[in-house]
């Protein structure tokens, strides 16, 4: 049985970003696997640990330099990584990425496709859902607990909502997008790191997955950025002074009521 995990690279969440000459300055910023995708991979690996016939593919549309992060996915326990590289990737929106991913995923015919619920870069939250539409499969998102039943070809999933947790029941195959808290991702073991280099890490171009330059034209983004800026700096505030904590708190509440007018 195959499981596919969709991952992407994002700038390290601890990084400070700035805008220079109308573009985001990524100088010196490290790239990591999107944090929500870590939970997606871990969930696939847990299924692999519990069953003996599971093959886990990790699939990414990204830059050539992403092989380093993909190697780590293999070190964690994935069996094969597939990286689709394309120079014009910046011009692709999640709909287009989903079409590219569908071309890779279809021949694998996985029982489950895991992905993060959103990328912590543009926060679209769209790729996994669009992929499920492309593949003609159901999707469950923001999943914090997942229980597949392979014998029955069904699953149960718990998803976060404003009203409380939603209990989903569904049929496999399905696309499942992970919320933080789905599991606790593992670290790579020394053995895993040593073994990763022997595992297949394939790099494919758009042509090699059956997409022509013509079809690529129809993939161009339906939205366009017209400006980028840094958020306005907050005005410096003040420390509320006082002889005692009580005095400080009284001063704070007065300021909140009379100056800030928020209470």
């Amino acid at each position: 049985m195959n499981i596919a995990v969709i991952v992407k690279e994002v700038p390290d969440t601890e990084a400070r970003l700035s805008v220079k000459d109308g573009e985001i300055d990524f100088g010196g910023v490290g790239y990591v696997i999107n944090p929500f995708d870590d939970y997606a991979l871990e969930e696939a690996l847990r299924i692999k640990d519990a069953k003996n016939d599971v093959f886990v593919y990790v699939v990414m549309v990204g830059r050539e330099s992403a092989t380093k992060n993909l190697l780590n996915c293999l070190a964690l326990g994935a069996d094969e990584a597939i990286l689709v590289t394309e120079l014009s990737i910046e011009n692709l929106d999640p709909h287009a990425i989903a079409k590219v991913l569908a071309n890779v995923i279809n021949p694998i015919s996985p029982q489950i496709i895991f992905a993060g619920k959103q990328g912590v870069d543009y926060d679209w939250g769209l790729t996994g859902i669009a992929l499920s539409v492309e593949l003609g499969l159901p999707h469950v998102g923001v999943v914090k607990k997942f229980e597949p039943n392979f014998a029955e070809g069904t699953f149960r999933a718990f998803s976060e909502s404003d009203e409380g947790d939603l209990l989903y029941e569904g049929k496999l195959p399905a696309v499942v997008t992970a919320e933080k808290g789905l599991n606790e991702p593992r670290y790579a073991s020394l053995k895993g790191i040593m073994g990763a280099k022997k595992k297949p890490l394939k790099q494919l171009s758009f042509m090699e997955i059956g997409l022509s330059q013509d079809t690529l034209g129809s993939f161009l983004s339906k939205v366009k950025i017209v400006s980028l800026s840094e958020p306005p700096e907050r005005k410096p505030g003040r420390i509320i002074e006082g002889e005692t904590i009580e005095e400080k708190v009284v001063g704070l509440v007065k300021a909140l009521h009379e100056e800030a007018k928020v209470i």
Partner: protein
Amino acid sequence: MGKIFFFIEAKDGELKKISYELANVARQLGEEVCGIFFSPSASIPEGINGLGASRIFSFTAQHGIYACEVIALELVKLIEMEKPDFILFGQTPMGRDLSARLSATLGIGYLNDITGLRKQNGGFIFTKPLYAGKIISEFVFTSPSPSVITVRPNIFNADVQSVSEVNVDTREVNFSSARAIVKEIIAKPVGMVDLKEADIIISGGRGLGDPKGFDVLFDFAKAVGAAVGASRAVVDSGWIDHSHQVGQTGKTVNPSLYIACGISGAIQHLAGMRTSKCIVAINNNPTAPIFKIADYGIVGDLYEVIPLLKRELLKIRGNPQG
């Protein structure tokens, strides 16, 4: 001028604030404003006239609570028939799910989590924070209408605009073909305020010193009607559920008042709460970076500060029993 659809959400039979916000955004985008509503029970919420929409398309269902796939296909039919320019949703769990599936099914333009809009040359430019708010972008649609937009809660005005008569067009959807369906909602404890819609948030970090510290925050929150937030550090340590996390891998919030207790102020946390109207930091370390972006700070022991803060807040509201 165009036709705008917006997705109405209600909770316990009452319209959510985001529904009014969407109605107001819809009126900025076009003249004919129509609501879409889904509820398994078919009951139209109280005060639906206050949304200013004279037509409402109401979907009901049997045999289940929610099935995105099925509802999205019904919306596709509606959109192909009615040809709106924009379909608006809240950036809420249901709004995110339905809007994304709808845009992918129709292959139409999608912009989510918008926090602003302005007119230019007869078109619209939309503001969307990127990297959890570290960068602010402006987008335009380059594809023909219709387009799908989700709107961040708590940003746009929620004014009521009443219409005397609402024409409700009720349609039934059939969930029997659904391959993923919500069977049950495991309700949250009563009295919990949603982080994304909260007016006051009190958040805790490592400085609490102990997971039990959140008891003090929950006590405060219950008394003043606030929601409880948390830093990534304490969520990763298992002190509190991830649903409380504020920041880049948690929620982006924008309350009137954000009270950060024992939170040092990592970049990924600040990104998630910096658009709060007023930020208060309580920390016993006077050099904590959080003080640089806070409007007001108290240097001191949060366990001394919070109970006093609760007392003083209730006092000023004329409710001194706390």
